[in-house]
């Protein structure tokens, strides 16, 4: 049976939208002739031509700025950051131009800015980051972080069709490790909707991105110990699916919030706050955050392993929480 990897799901999603809608185009560094540093855009130059697959100079601000300009006159640009770490160079265009146009003067900016995020591949401090928290406090943006091939395809399609700017943070560790059968017909995954990856009664792990797999591994181990864990995959972190968050918190009364972005100021704090504000009386224990320490992402294997949340850490913290 033919299965689709996470990275091919992204490519197929973009490809199908480009076939369907002539206003969709790609721009970024090495996306054309080379097909992208990770080959997300492989074959697109041949298929769609140089007017729709544009190799740019090393100018992230121009990539996003040009995407904004084209979007203002009716195009649907998909801008690639070669590594998502470089999105910092385009920060100003994203937060001050793209995010504020609709509110200020009613002009929609339907752009997608996407790129490989995350660690676990020894990329070091500048090729491993999870920058979603930088943008989490910016009204006007949407942020998605798919964990499965199905969601990767469904969310890139939803992002391209969305009338507002969407930051699409794909996880490079999952690119070729995660695969599944995908429906042949067209589908989208709605932005702002979380999904339960595992149902359980005793404890909830709320997470997204590559950490979904760590949570599921931990849940398997905890099941052996008689602890029944529910795993909620947020999929989108802006907007947050507050209803799904509160539902699982009220159901199990014990919550772990897990992410790969560093701890302080990470998106998990907001999830915790919503639960504390709106489901406090349902809780039977403290809400626990699991995230990397407040350091840059280190390169050397023992350091990176210590940095990234590991299954055993989750199991240990879950056991303590379950004991309340």
């Amino acid at each position, binding site marked *: 049976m033919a299965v689709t990897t996470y990275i091919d799901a992204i490519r197929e999603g973009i490809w199908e939208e480009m076939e369907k809608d002539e206003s969709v185009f790609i721009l970024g560094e090495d996306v054309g002739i080379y097909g992208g540093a990770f080959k997300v855009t492989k074959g697109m130059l041949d298929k769609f031509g140089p007017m729709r697959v544009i190799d740019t100079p090393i100018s992230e601000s*121009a990539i996003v700025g040009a995407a904004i300009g*084209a979007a203002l006159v009716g195009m649907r640009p998909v801008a690639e950051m070669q590594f998502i770490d470089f999105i910092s160079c385009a920060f100003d265009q994203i937060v001050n131009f793209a995010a504020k146009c609709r509110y200020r003067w009613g002009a929609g900016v339907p752009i997608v800015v996407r790129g490989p995020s995350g660690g676990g591949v020894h990329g070091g401090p500048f090729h491993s980051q999870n920058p979603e928290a930088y943008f989490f406090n910016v009204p006007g943006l949407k942020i998605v972080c798919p964990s499965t091939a199905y969601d990767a395809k469904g969310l890139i399609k939803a992002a391209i069709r969305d009338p507002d700017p969407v930051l699409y943070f794909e996880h490079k560790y999952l690119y070729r490790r995660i695969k599944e059968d995908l429906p042949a017909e067209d589908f989208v995954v709605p932005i702002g909707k979380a999904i339960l990856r595992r149902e359980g009664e005793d404890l909830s792990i709320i997470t997204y991105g590559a950490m979904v797999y760590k949570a599921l591994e931990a849940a398997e181990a905890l099941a052996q110990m008689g602890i029944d864990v529910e795993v909620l995959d947020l999929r989108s972190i802006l907007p947050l699916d507050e209803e799904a968050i509160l539902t699982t918190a009220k159901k199990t009364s014990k919550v772990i919030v897990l992410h790969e972005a560093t701890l302080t100021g990470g998106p998990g704090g907001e999830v915790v706050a919503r639960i504390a504000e709106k489901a406090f009386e349902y809780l039977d224990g403290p809400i626990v955050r699991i995230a990397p320490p407040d350091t840059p992402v280190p390169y050397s294997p023992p350091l990176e392993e210590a940095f990234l949340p590991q299954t055993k850490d989750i199991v240990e913290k879950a056991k303590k929480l379950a004991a309340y």
Partner: protein
Amino acid sequence: MVERNTMTKNARYVHVPDDETKIRMLHFMKLVREIEDRIEKKLYRQGRIVGGVYVGRGQEAISVGTAIHMEKDDVVAPSHRDMGVFLMRGVTPRRIIAQYMGRRTGLTRGRDGNMHMGDMNYNVIAFVSHLGDNVPVAAGVALAFKQRGQKQVALCYNGEGATSRGDWHEGINFASIHKLPVTFFINNNAYAYSTPIELQMAVKDVAVRAAGYGIPGEVVDGNDILAVYDSGKRAIDLARSGGGPSIVEYKTFRMTGHSAHDDAGYVPPELFDEWKRKDPITRFEKALLEEGALTQARLDEMQRECALIVDDAVEWAEQQPYPAAEEVTKDVYYEGT
């Protein structure tokens, strides 16, 4: 190569406006002056405009003499001293004053103030305070025109201060590589807030940088509306015909402080005296009177007309409602048509 237009009246232009166009340009320059004088010297000081005020006094020829060449579907990304662009695109003085007063019928419905306004119905992209951000954005508009095979152009305006930002470089470089139909106009008004040119750049002219992008650059007297008209037309025609971007630098002077609260005490007074003599409006009026395209009676009438237009705009704007407080959370995201 940097081509220099001379400041003499013997300068020969490729494009010379007819008398009707000259009168039209004078009208818009005078209207810009009238609106901005009213905003800065009256409404702001009287507390009827609550936020910051930035005017382009002395620079009126630049926006008027360039934007006049726009076709209906062209798109413009002005900066904060380019009021003429809005008027040339058909935005009414009523809505401009309402914008300054934070009213619901201003272009941003009270979400933003002063020159931070735009409307794609007029093909005007709203300026953001982060200078030079509009350069990659204008390049993107031009990219869409090229992708769709349209014969439209994008115009992008900045002061010389904005050219120190990285976005200015990135945008122009990108536009130059792809020969995009966009023209970059620079209002070089000698000061960025209090910072003079020599502390902004180590070159005398911004336009020399064009060579670094492989595109034409030109230095023009920005206080000579006929020179602006001619150079603007040539640059826009170049872009429209597939010749790609160019940089046209207009030498001018900011006849005010950076904003209404700034007395510009750091500017040597003799510079104001020198540039007052080169005022683009009085200079043009004198030329038109001398050549007989305009009578003193007609000129006086134009002045009265402009004052009446602004009287009406202020009266209208003050009757406009403020946005309702509950609108504060609206329109952050698409909410349907």
